[in-house]
């Protein structure tokens, strides 16, 4: 074993990154522009709305989707963030996380569906997912800066890389758990693959897929500090600043704001799945 010389994988990767860098304009700039626009759109739209009104709007949404307790929590939680003085940062973080989540959902659910349908595809995708979740963000953040510069964009990309896998995995799982008899019923009526998916598999797998979306949101939120390390604004930067200054209290406050966003989003997604039958 010792006989084999060390493979120069590191160099290959560096070479690869360099090559990629040459096609930056074609490969990454459009992506960069789109993501940047999305984040900006999300945060500016939200920032436009007066905080009080936004809090009430979100509270109302929570009421409709998730019931009264959630509404109370949403209003109190967001007010607390406001009180602590993290409102603007919260909006920025919202923008970042929503963008990352949306991208993850848009990519993750279809990929998860394909995984559920094709074993080979699943077998190919799984190690990639493992890689996405365990390759430390720090490792690819540096190349990400080469390609996307500092700021929100690499933050969103890192979040997507980390937060996408649970959606794929749980979509795959959920669809595979659909009982055979239900798929047979759909087949027997001549459903196309798409109809079977939309009318039978996805509705049945909903709670599992939503668990994936929930994990996705959580992981995206857990990346905000990392995102802050490459220049994304928002609560992550506050946390990081507080941490650098060994200010546990302030760090906790900013962290708490992230947690409140997490709980609000969690409520909304989880209950959205259940609020259907009212008997």
């Amino acid at each position, binding site marked *: 074993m010792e006989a084999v010389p060390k493979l120069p994988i590191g160099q290959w990767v560096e070479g690869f990154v360099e090559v990629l860098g040459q096609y930056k304009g074609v490969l990454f700039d459009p992506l960069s522009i789109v993501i940047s626009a999305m984040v900006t759109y999300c945060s500016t739209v939200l920032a436009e709305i007066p905080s009080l009104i936004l809090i009430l709007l979100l509270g109302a949404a929570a009421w409709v989707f998730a019931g009264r307790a959630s509404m109370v929590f949403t209003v109190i939680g967001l007010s607390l963030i406001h009180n602590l003085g993290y409102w603007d940062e919260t909006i920025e973080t919202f923008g970042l996380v929503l963008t990352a989540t949306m991208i993850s959902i848009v990519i993750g659910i279809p990929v998860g569906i394909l995984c559920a349908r094709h074993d080979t595809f699943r077998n190919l995708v799984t190690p990639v997912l493992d890689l996405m979740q365990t390759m430390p963000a720090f490792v690819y953040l540096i190349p990400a*800066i080469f390609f996307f510069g500092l700021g929100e964009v690499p933050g969103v990309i890192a979040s997507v890389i980390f937060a996408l896998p649970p959606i794929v995995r749980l979509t795959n799982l959920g669809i595979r758990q659909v009982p055979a008899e239900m798929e047979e019923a759909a087949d027997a009526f001549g459903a196309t693959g798409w109809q079977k998916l939309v009318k039978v598999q996805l509705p049945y797998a909903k709670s599992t897929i939503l668990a994936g979306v929930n994990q996705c949101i959580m992981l995206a939120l857990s990346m905000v500090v990392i995102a802050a390390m490459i220049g994304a604004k928002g609560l992550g930067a506050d946390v990081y600043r507080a941490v650098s200054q060994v200010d546990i209290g302030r760090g906790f406050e900013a962290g708490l704001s992230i947690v409140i966003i997490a709980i609000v989003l969690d409520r909304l997604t989880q209950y959205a799945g259940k609020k259907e039958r009212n008997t």
Partner: protein
Amino acid sequence: SSQNTNTQIPTATVVGPIASETSDNALGEKLDYKIIGIDAGAGSMVKTEEVMNLYGLDKWQLVEGSDAAMTAALIKAYEAKEPIIITGWTPHWMFKKMDLKYLADPKNGFGGPEQIHTIVRKGLKQDQPAAYQFLDKFWWEPADMESVMVQMIDGKDPEVAAAEWVKNNEAKVAKWVEGIQPVQKEKLTLAYVAWDSEIASTHVVEHVLEQKLGYEVELSQVQTGPMWAGVAIGDVDGMVTAWLPSTDTSYLEKFGGQIKDLGPNLDGTKIGLVVPSYMNISSIEDLK
């Protein structure tokens, strides 16, 4: 390579005539009025904010990130020969790899030069007088440190680089351990952060402690905050990597009471705004 690079930037979105390109306006716009900083809340970041106020750089913005991100951004710009302004410090390997320069600080906003201090836990003096005495005496020059760092950047293991340096500087080392009674395999833990300068110094210290004083040293590579906290709670016996008075100032404030500061082990470090040499500005005032 400090040639004028302006004409080499094909993507430059220059508004004014070529002649005014060197004016702050053009540069500012090109840089989006961004100075690339390091970890939010780090001492040098706080200092830089102060300096920016001092010079009235209201239009400019200090981008928070991390040192790795800053370095990456610097490399990226440097390779493309694009302008960039960062918050930098020496000793740092980037000065070895790239041609960089500090912007002059006529108002002395960044204050005097930084020092690197040795910090040990309370009670080390009683528990391990030998190590304490050595750490107290440990003091060297930036040139010493850099010679270790250069070796490391060339691909040597830190241990090897440190051992070689000690071999080549027996006289200096002898002074550090002069009159100290070696011990029998006592255990000692040192913490350090994974920057080249700290890796270099910590490994030299480790080498001396083990070879000259008979200690068994364990090194713990950590982040700055945990490093200070580790010393403060006595989990770590000490470290030789505290940047004071600016960079690590908040840690000193927080943990000052729980540690013992043995004073500087290196003088002549520096923090400030750094640009590639090819850039056509030389003073912070030029940014206005």
